[in-house]
Structures are given as structure tokens and as C-alpha cells.
């Protein structure tokens, strides 16, 4: 925090963010171990207020030479500061660290990877299996001229499996992943089981049911529905007027069974933190309750512009987080979609005829802000309540806001984690447009 003192001598206020990443990643390509990678990386970012104006700069390394000067140049040409740095520091801690996870030996990663490859090849010997396993720690130290520095070390453990199944004139790609804080939460067999289920369901090719169809979005595919909400519920989008939810606080815009919560304080949650990257304590924030818009998530800047309270959602690196190079922006932590009832099988029976969306391609393309989506889908045809095979060359399209208001037939009773960021049950929507070639 020596840099912070240097900055403090030349500015009215300053805030220093230091991230120290240490970890190991093992990469299996086509079933064979290809690379083991380790990192020892320090990133630093300085914000300061000089002559009433905000400045920012970032760099790497412990010495961070020139960082103070760079931030001062930025401030010199910058705009008046809309907010001061947060004088907090006594918020209760959330569990984000696990000693055993931080110390997982490199060999253990290799062994999990090998097991996954073997288990998949035992049932599908001809598929190409790519596995990535990573574990490590990110230690964040945040200090500012308003309060003493705080440090939080956070562990992570992540597994990602991708399988390519190539047959004559057909290539089928499936994927599954898990991101957790602790080895106790880690279930590598569940990732493999999910892959095996996708391979089994996609073995046969089936004709696409076209037109306005019921579509059962499995948790992985629900991201296509939720992505517009990430933009819509961002306090900055509301301030800028690019959110369709602007001015809709308290209005019933969704089906009464739909609820959405951003929980930044989930004990040992994969994206939990005691404080955000601006030092604001994280919160449990209700976004939608019984279909009614309840709130938006803010960082310090958006909160200042909206004259709202910051919600502890100021994180670096945008929606995915983790990059010291960018200033904080509003970012949700764990989006929790309230579950309904019924197992996956019961939902498929309930649907009768329709389409299951396993995953989509081209996530994030198109006019997300308006809620519109139009994506190539990896999915399965359902007839008389049974999965009959995989569809090809199929696109689904619709509008999130319209479908979650008028088209929600059912929410499942068995939520799952997606990328450690979204906890959602399968979602059955009526009236999704399905086209095929």
C-alpha cells in the first residue's frame, strides 16, 4: 500500500486495488494431457481524485512504476468525480476461502482429468474429450484514503469438459462445467454424468418441430433468456436509458411465478465476496419478486447518477469479472432464479411435444438490450413426452421480456449451477419460434 500513500500525497483521495493470482491449470486435448500451466501474476489499479476530477490507471507487477503519474494524467483530463471512495471496512465476512482447495496438489488435477476421460470413453469410445481443470487463489487487497486496507483471499476450483463426436456427415459438440470455491463442493462425476446424458440424448437425429413451439430450456441454455436481464437490471443501463426496465420499478413485468435474486453473500458461493471491488459490502438483492421489478444492481458511479444506494455490485472486468485492468462496473454475483416444481423427466412428460434446448450458439449476438434473441440451438426433439433425438440446423428466437411475461408454462423443481454464476431450474416456455432449414 506504499503506492497508495504516494498517491495520497498528490491527490485529494485515492483507491488502490491489488490482485495477486496464483494457480495451476491442466489441459487435456483429445483425451491426452497437453499442458500444465501455473501463474504468479500481480495486477494493480489506481483510482484517484485530483482537483475534484477522477483518474484511473492500471498495471502489472509489484513495483507498478509510473502508476501514480498515469492516474494523475487521467484525472487532469477527466471529468468531475461523481462519488468518493468508500469508508467502510467493518462488514461481516462471507466464506470465500478453503485451505484444502488452495493446496490441491497438481497431480490431483491430472487424476481428475484422466478419470473424466476414461469414464466418457468407457461409454463412448469414439468421441474426442477435452478437459480443463483449474485451481488457485485470488488475493484482493483494497485500500483507500478513507479507510484501512482490507485483504480477502478467495479460492477457486473449476472443471470444464467439452466433447466432440464426429460421425459421417455429423458433428455433435457437448459441454459441461463446474465452478466452485471448495473441494467439498466439487463433484467431477456430475460433470461427466451430464456429458454422458447429452451424448445419449443426441445419439439419434430427429426432425425439428417447427413453428411456435414449447421449448424446455435446460439450465445451460437458460443463459440465452437471462442475458438480456443482465443488461436490463444493470443500474448503469437504467441510468443510460438503454434498459427496457427503466422507470418500471414496482411494475408487474413478469409471470407471477418468476423471481430473481442477486446474492453476493452466498456462503462459499463461487462468486461471493465480502466486499466488491470498490469496498462496498456485497448484498442479497431482490430483482424480481412474484413477477414485480424490485431493484437494480449498482456500482458507486451508477448509484451516484441514479441517486440510489450502491448495492455492492461494483466489480472489475464487466459481467464475467476478474480483470484488474478495467474500472469497476455493475456486475451481478449469483443470479438465483426461484424454482417451481417437478423433475426434469416430469417436465418433459408435461411438455408432450416440443423441443429441449440444451445449449445455444452465438450467445450475446444481436440486440440483447431489447430482449430479442435468435440463436442456433443444440437440442432435442420431444414427442409424446419422450426424447426422440437431436435436432440439427435449428434456430430458436423470441423476446425474453415477452416470453417471461406471457409464455412461462413451468419452472422446474431441480435448480442447477451454471458457470458458478446462475442458479436456475429448467424453464419451459410456450410460443418460442423454431425454424429449420
Amino acid at each position, binding site marked *: 500500500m506504499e503506492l497508495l500513500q504516494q498517491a495520497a500525497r498528490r491527490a485529494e483521495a485515492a483507491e488502490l486495488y491489488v490482485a495477486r493470482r496464483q494457480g495451476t491449470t491442466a489441459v487435456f486435448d*483429445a483425451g*491426452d*494431457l*497437453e*499442458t*500444465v*500451466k*501455473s501463474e*504468479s*501474476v*500481480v*495486477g494493480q489499479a489506481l483510482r484517484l481524485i485530483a482537483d475534484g476530477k477522477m*483518474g484511473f*490507471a*492500471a*498495471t*502489472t*507487477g*509489484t513495483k507498478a512504476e*509510473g502508476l501514480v503519474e*498515469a492516474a494523475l*494524467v*487521467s484525472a487532469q*483530463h*477527466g471529468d468531475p468525480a461523481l462519488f468518493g471512495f468508500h469508508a467502510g471496512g467493518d462488514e461481516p465476512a462471507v466464506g470465500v476461502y478453503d485451505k484444502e482447495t488452495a493446496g490441491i496438489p497438481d497431480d490431483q488435477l491430472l487424476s481428475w482429468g*484422466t478419470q473424466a476421460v476414461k469414464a466418457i470413453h468407457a461409454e463412448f469410445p469414439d468421441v*474426442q474429450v477435452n478437459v480443463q481443470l483449474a485451481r488457485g487463489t485470488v488475493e484482493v487487497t483494497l485500500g483507500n484514503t478513507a479507510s484501512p486496507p482490507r485483504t480477502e483471499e478467495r479460492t477457486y476450483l473449476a472443471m470444464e469438459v467439452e466433447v*466432440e463426436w*464426429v*460421425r459421417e456427415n455429423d*458433428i455433435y*459438440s457437448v459441454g459441461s462445467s463446474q465452478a466452485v470455491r471448495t473441494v467439498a463442493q466439487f463433484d467431477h462425476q456430475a460433470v461427466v454424468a451430464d456429458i454422458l446424458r447429452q451424448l445419449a440424448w443426441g445419439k439419434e437425429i430427429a426432425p425439428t418441430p417447427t413453428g411456435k413451439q414449447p421449448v424446455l430450456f435446460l439450465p445451460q441454455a437458460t443463459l440465452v433468456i437471462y442475458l438480456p436481464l443482465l443488461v436490463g437490471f444493470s443500474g448503469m443501463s437504467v441510468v*443510460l*436509458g*438503454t434498459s*427496457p426496465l427503466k422507470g418500471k420499478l414496482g411494475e408487474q413485468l413478469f409471470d407471477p411465478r418468476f423471481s430473481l435474486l442477486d446474492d453476493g453473500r452466498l456462503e462459499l458461493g463461487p462468486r461471493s465476496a465480502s466486499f466488491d471491488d470498490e469496498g462496498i459490502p456485497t448484498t442479497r438483492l431482490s430483482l424480481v419478486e412474484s413477477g414485480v421489478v424490485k431493484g437494480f444492481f449498482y456500482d458507486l458511479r451508477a448509484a451516484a447518477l441514479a441517486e440510489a444506494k450502491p448495492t455492492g455490485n461494483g466489480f472489475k472486468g464487466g459481467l464475467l469479472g476478474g480483470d484488474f*485492468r*478495467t*474500472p469497476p462496473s455493475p456486475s451481478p454475483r449469483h443470479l438465483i432464479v426461484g424454482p417451481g416444481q417437478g423433475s426434469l423427466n416430469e417436465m418433459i412428460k408435461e411438455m408432450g411435444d416440443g423441443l429441449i434446448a440444451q445449449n445455444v*450458439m*452465438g*450467445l*450475446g*449476438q*444481436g*440486440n440483447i*438490450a*431489447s430482449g430479442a434473441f*435468435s*440463436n*442456433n440451438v*443444440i437440442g432435442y426433439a420431444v414427442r409424446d413426452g419422450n426424447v426422440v433425438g437431436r435436432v*440439427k*440446423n435449428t*434456430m*430458436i*428466437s423470441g423476446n425474453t421480456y415477452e416470453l417471461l411475461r406471457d409464455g412461462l408454462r413451468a419452472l422446474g423443481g431441480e435448480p442447477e449451477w451454471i458457470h458458478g454464476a446462475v442458479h436456475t431450474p429448467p424453464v419451459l416456455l410456450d410460443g418460442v*419460434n423454431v425454424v*429449420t*432449414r
Partner: protein
Amino acid sequence: MESLVREEIAQAKADFVEVRWDELAWSKVAFQRDQLMALEESKEVGGIVRAMVGGAWGVALLTDPAELPTQVEEATRLARMASRHVQEPTGLADVPVEEKRHVAELQEDFRSVPLSRKRTQAEEYNKLILDFSPEIVSTSVRYTDTYRKNLYANSEGTFIYQEIPDVTLLLAAVARRNGDIQQAFETIGEAAGYELVQGQEKKAEAAAKRAVDLLSAEPVTGGTYTVILDQQLAGVFIHEAFGHICEADFLFRNPHMRQVMKLGRQFGAPMLNVVDDGFIPGARGNTLFDDEGVRRQKVYLIKDGVLSGLMHSRATAHKMGMEPTGNARSISWEHEPIVRMRNTYIEPGEATFDEMIKDINHGIYAKAAFGGQTMFEQFTFSAAYAHEIKGGEVGPMVRDVVLTGNVFHILQNIDMVGQDFQLIGGSGGCGKGGQMPLPVTDGAPHVRVNEVTVGGR
């Protein structure tokens, strides 16, 4: 740093070792509506060590030069550990030992342009867009420049120093009418100096006008159409739908895919030529030497309709018995090189736009791109905007146009290639394997394709 790198490589106890050290200086100015979202000039350094032992890779990252000796040891240790688990060892194709220094020459070096001037320029474009119409509710104007000083050395004796400039400008407008929100953008990006981003007022106005026009456009009706792609979208198409499957790391370990992507296979009509080139003056994808120290090659992916080349790293070239092409690239010192495109384009053909459109009874003229994604044969990409084609003429604007299909069918269905070639750098970049954005350039003339599936409502 040079002497430290040479010294540590000489002492490494691996079969092969390489060190890459980057010094980056960048500046960024971003506005959204009336908000200055970014204004900075920052610098960073970082390095990556790759060691090979027994055909397995160990990799170690560092941000402090003093850690180089320990990270060379760490990479070697990891490679040794990995080598005990490897079934099929990785080999590296032979390449000439290179010793080269390349200093970039810029017309107006953006490093000596004061941050205040960059801010003023971006602010002017931002104001142009905001003032265009009361229906413009927000903007996204972003200027970036990056100057990368890149040092590469390996234990075979190759030593390369190169400077890589990159400058981009994004001009985006968001328009709103009642509940409907539409956006439009123009982008530019080149390996150039500050001169590139000046005098772009027309592009700012074009983005603003289009965002407003899209408010009155109807969503496209889904179905199968004959589609004319403009240069920008055709460029994205050839990059996304075809370029990615010509990256050898994608198929070199998969016998099925190697069979599908066999050189000599007919992929399209004889007038179709597709190239990936490591150097075109000013292009963002320029890679004189790639991140394995390999000198650039110009690769014909499709020549006269026939698959005639793939893009390689040293490892994929070794495995497939081919020559490395200089396509091993990484976005920064944080990542190991993987097979990536550089400047990828469809060569111009002979058709005029009038010849393409005149006999289309009901089709789509799809323009510019929001993005695209592929899953081997399956691809999907979205046009930023489009027009209906009716009775051989360009009709009303339509929106939400997403194209999808099977790349092999689509390539076969390209029946006309235009003369009006353009190379487009853009302000984004390519993403693959968690590495995003990598500066690349796409290019093409207008291209006509039959039987394209268009998603819609």
C-alpha cells in the same frame, strides 16, 4: 530484459524452452451518452515461459522480471510432471532459426498524441451521434490504441523483437422509441497511427441514422432465402464459418475431422478463393513472426474452389507432416499461442452487385455483423441490419437477421463473388480458447449465397 532472457534460456533444463516478454502501452477513451466511462493511458509488462519435456508442455506466467529464473524452473517442473502422463508426445516441426528486429513506423504515432486530444476527438464523435435525433438515447464511443513491444526467444537460438501497433474506434448509437431499443455501430481498426481515427464524422452519423432507422424496421420473417452478404458480413462469415475449421489445432488430433478437411476436396465453385495472410500493409492481423518465432506465410485455404491449405502451429504442423504457417498467436503474455487467423479474406471475383441482385425475387441483403460463432460444420452469425430484396431490388430495412447453416452447404451455395473487395479491421477481435480479443482483419467482396436459413419471428 534481453540479456536476462538469453541467460535463463541457456540455463534451462528442458528439451525446449521459450520465453515471451511483452511491454504494452495503451490508451483508452470511452463515452456512453454523457458519461466518460474510460480515460486512461496505462502500461504493463508480463512474461510467459513454455518448456517442453518428453513431449509435454509446462507453462509459467510472471509479471515481475526478477521471477524469470524461478518461472523457467517452474515451467520445466510442470512439463516434467506432465510428461509422465502423456500418451502421445507433442513434437515441434522444424523451422529456421531467426534473429530479427522490427520497429514499427507510424504516420502519426499515437503515443505522442496527448490524452486530452484523444478525449476531445472521441467527445466530438459522441456529440455528433447524440445530437443526431431525440430518439438517440445513448451511445458507445470508444477509442483505443495499443503499442506492444514483444520479445521472443527460444532454446533453438531464435530471437525476435517486434513492435506491434493497433488502433481502433467504435462508434455506436442506441435509439429508443417507446419500449423498443435498437442499436447500430460503425468500427475501424488498423495497425496504424492516430491519423486513422480522425475525420470519421460520416461513420458516426451513419451509425446514428441506422439506429433510428432500425426503430421503424420490421423483424425479418424466418425462413430460407437467397442472401447477398455485404463485404463486412461476408468477411465475418468466411472467418467464423470457414476460417476456424481450417485452424489445424481443431482437427489435428481427430482422424474424422482430418478426413472431412482433406486437402484437395472440392469446397465450392471454381471462382472461390480464400486466403489467410500474415501481412497486408496496415492490417490489424499482421503477424510478421508469430508467437513461436515462425515467419509468416500466405496461406491459400481455398484455391479455385478446392481446399488447399490449413493454418498451423509448430505442433500441428509436426503432427500432420506440414509446414508451420506462422499462425500461432496469443492475445498477450497471459496466454500460450494457439492456432489463430490473421488477415482472412475471400478474393474478389467478377460479379457486379446489379448482376447479383437482378434475378432474386425474394431475398435478403444482409449487412455488417454483430458477431458469429461456429461449431465445426454448424455456424451462426448475426447481421447488424438487413434489407429485404424484392423483385430484384433492395427493399425495406429489416432487423434481427441471424443466419445459420452448415458451412459445407453454404460454401457450395455461393454462386456469385463480387468485384468490390474490402478489408475490414473493426474495433473488436476474435475469440478462441478463452483468448479474446485478438486483432484480426476480415475481408471480402459482396457474395451471393443460395438457400440460407434465416432465424426470425
